[in-house]
């Protein structure tokens, strides 16, 4: 065990992945000598050479297109998109190519080796273009997996699993926690399962569901609620696609209530899919409507960032509205 922050855990996972499989290649803007603007790829070029860790020209569609080809060829690309806000030029190479490569070729070719790492989320005074949480766009793409860790331990185990998973994975890193989240992380190689949620704490009155940086907010809200005598069951979804319907519905059957929270705008956010599915599966168990506490239906503002965010107070209010329904 060693104390690591989230960035160090990611860096550590990348080193292990590159040591363990010499087909692993890290690419992206500024990831080479410099080690990335957040330093997640520090020392990789120095340790593994320029051929296996390199700066690309400044073109996200090129990065993912190139990585798709590299993956189809049999290498294991780990591509960095500098901010999730800048992933959209690569959207076609993700939706139409990476995700459909295997299906369209009947399994003859695939981009399963591809992993895309990208920092997402707000709370860093980043405004419109350094704060977005675009997971819902990718959750509507059959063929993709989408994974979000909440702390260093998860980050390492889920990233290693993502790199080795036989499907293209979008790995979204909560950048607000890069340095803020510190924890004990095993130094050896380990994986955490994709597609499995984690129940952080059991409760009986309401299930709270979120992922990534939002988990800390949920924890705060749950504490406020517990002071009001409300017992919350806290679930970290961890994988957005495919998501762990069993853990969530088991919990809702037990508690009778569900609140989902994410930073992304409410309309068309991933909470809608969860709510739609759970109201269907747990209809007779629901004691109040499934509640969504999410970002507003606006671009991500700068000056009003605090007001935009689904903070612990808004979540707490949501919890109380749900239990008092």
């Amino acid at each position, binding site marked *: 065990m060693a104390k690591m922050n989230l960035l160090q855990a990611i860096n550590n996972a990348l080193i292990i992945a590159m040591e363990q499989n010499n*087909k692993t*290649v890290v690419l992206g803007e500024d990831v080479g000598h410099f080690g990335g603007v957040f330093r997640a790829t520090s020392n990789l070029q120095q340790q593994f050479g320029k*051929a*296996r860790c*390199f700066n*690309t*020209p400044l*073109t996200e*569609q*090129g990065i*993912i*297109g*190139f*990585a*798709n*080809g*590299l*993956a*189809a*060829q*049999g*290498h294991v*690309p780990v591509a960095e998109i500098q901010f999730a806000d800048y992933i959209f*030029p690569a959207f*076609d*190479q993700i939706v*139409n*190519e990476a995700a*459909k*490569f*295997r*299906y*369209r*070729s*009947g*399994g*003859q*070719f*695939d981009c*399963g080796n591809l992993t895309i790492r990208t920092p997402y989320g707000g709370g860093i005074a980043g405004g419109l273009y350094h704060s977005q949480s675009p997971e819902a766009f990718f959750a509507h793409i*059959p*063929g993709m*997996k989408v994974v979000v860790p909440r702390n260093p331990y998860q980050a390492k185990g889920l990233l290693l699993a993502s790199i080795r998973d*036989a*499907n293209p994975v979008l790995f979204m890193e909560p950048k607000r926690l890069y340095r803020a989240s510190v924890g004990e992380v095993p130094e050896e190689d380990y994986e955490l399962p994709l*597609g499995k949620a984690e129940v952080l704490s059991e409760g009986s009155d309401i299930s709270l569901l979120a992922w990534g940086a939002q988990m800390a907010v949920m924890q705060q809200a749950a504490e406020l609620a517990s002071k009001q005598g409300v017992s919350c069951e806290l679930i970290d979804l961890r994988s957005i696609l*495919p998501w762990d*319907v*069993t853990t969530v519905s088991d919990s809702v059957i037990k508690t009778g209530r569900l609140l989902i929270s994410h930073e992304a705008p409410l309309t068309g956010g991933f909470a809608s899919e969860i709510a739609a599915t759970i109201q269907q599966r747990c209809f007779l168990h629901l004691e109040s409507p499934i509640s969504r506490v999410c970002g507003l239906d606006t671009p991500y503002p700068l000056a009003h960032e605090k007001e935009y965010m689904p903070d612990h107070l808004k979540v707490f209010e949501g919890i109380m509205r749900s239990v008092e329904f």
Partner: protein
Amino acid sequence: MPKNITKAVKVVHQVDIIDNGLIDIPMLQIMQADGVIHAQATIPEIDKELALKMYDTMQYTRILDERMVAAQRQGRISFYLACTGEEASVVGSVAALSDQDMIMSQYREQGALAFRGYSTEQFMNQMFSNELEPNKGRQMPIHYGAKELNFMTISSPLATQIPQASGYAYGQKLAGQQAITLCYFGEGAASEGDFHAGLNMAAVLGCPCIFLCRNNGYAISTPASEQFAGDGIASRGLGYGIRTIRVDGNDIFAVYAATQQARIIALAEQCPVLIEAMTYRLAAHSTSDDPSSYRSKDEEARWADKDPLQRFAAWLISQGWLEEQLQTKKVESIRQEVLQELKRVEKVPICKVDEIITDVYDQPPWNLQEQLAELKQHIAKYPEAYPKTSGRL
């Protein structure tokens, strides 16, 4: 000469905004339109066997095109897209490759597949989307793919294969393979952002890749004059610092010689090479298209005179390598083969419904498993509504 902060640059002192004229890339032509070799030209070393294999392949796809367009008109297949007029650009280039080289094509390059041994049966399986087709009938006709022939499954979105080819070639380099990637695309596709990304990355990262642009004058109805204003696609290669050549795409010797040379350079120097093949789409864009509303019969006739097949045939005859009588027989036998296979294969069933959820992921997750189970129950309840799959649940 890459210019940046460390490289020397020539300095001038008068404002002189460079006009388009600076770039004027010539076109390599070895064989004239009548099949006669230019006096100053050297024929690439091609023996009789290879020459005839090349010619036969061109002939084959020409007939395949003709037959399949007819089959589409009869409603037997839903869609087809012909290579007619561009056979030399495709066959001339694939013939200069090693079988280990990966081909990533756009869609009008059936000659490359045929040259590598893709059979009539395989063509038919693909076009009938049946269960014998390795792509499992998931894509429209002409989206061929054959792993064993190092021919990447075709994807409809244009130009996406270009940066992928750079990445694929980079992987070949890392793996130390003595192989390159050949990436085909049209002059229309070259307007996509992916083209820019792919070529620039290949140049900067040293990818052993040949980019072969079939500049056939049109992107569906859009003439090249509304596609770009520069000196074709070749001039862009120079901008990226990519070694570049323009060839007469209807002259199979020019295409072959350029590709052979390009492959040597790409392998030896681990770098990309761009080839622009000047050609013409003699056919409609696809069976969904009718070119008569956007181009003249006259123009088509002028290009028909430059037909790459006739040109090559003329040369082969002059060599005594081709007998016209034998040819007529051969044409007839290909036609027969195509028709027979067509008839036979159109009866092969499509995949069982279970395949609807495979290959989305390596393993179907819970949602797909549930959806398949529900679907099968539903089909069992309404078998007449799903006649192609209900018989084999």
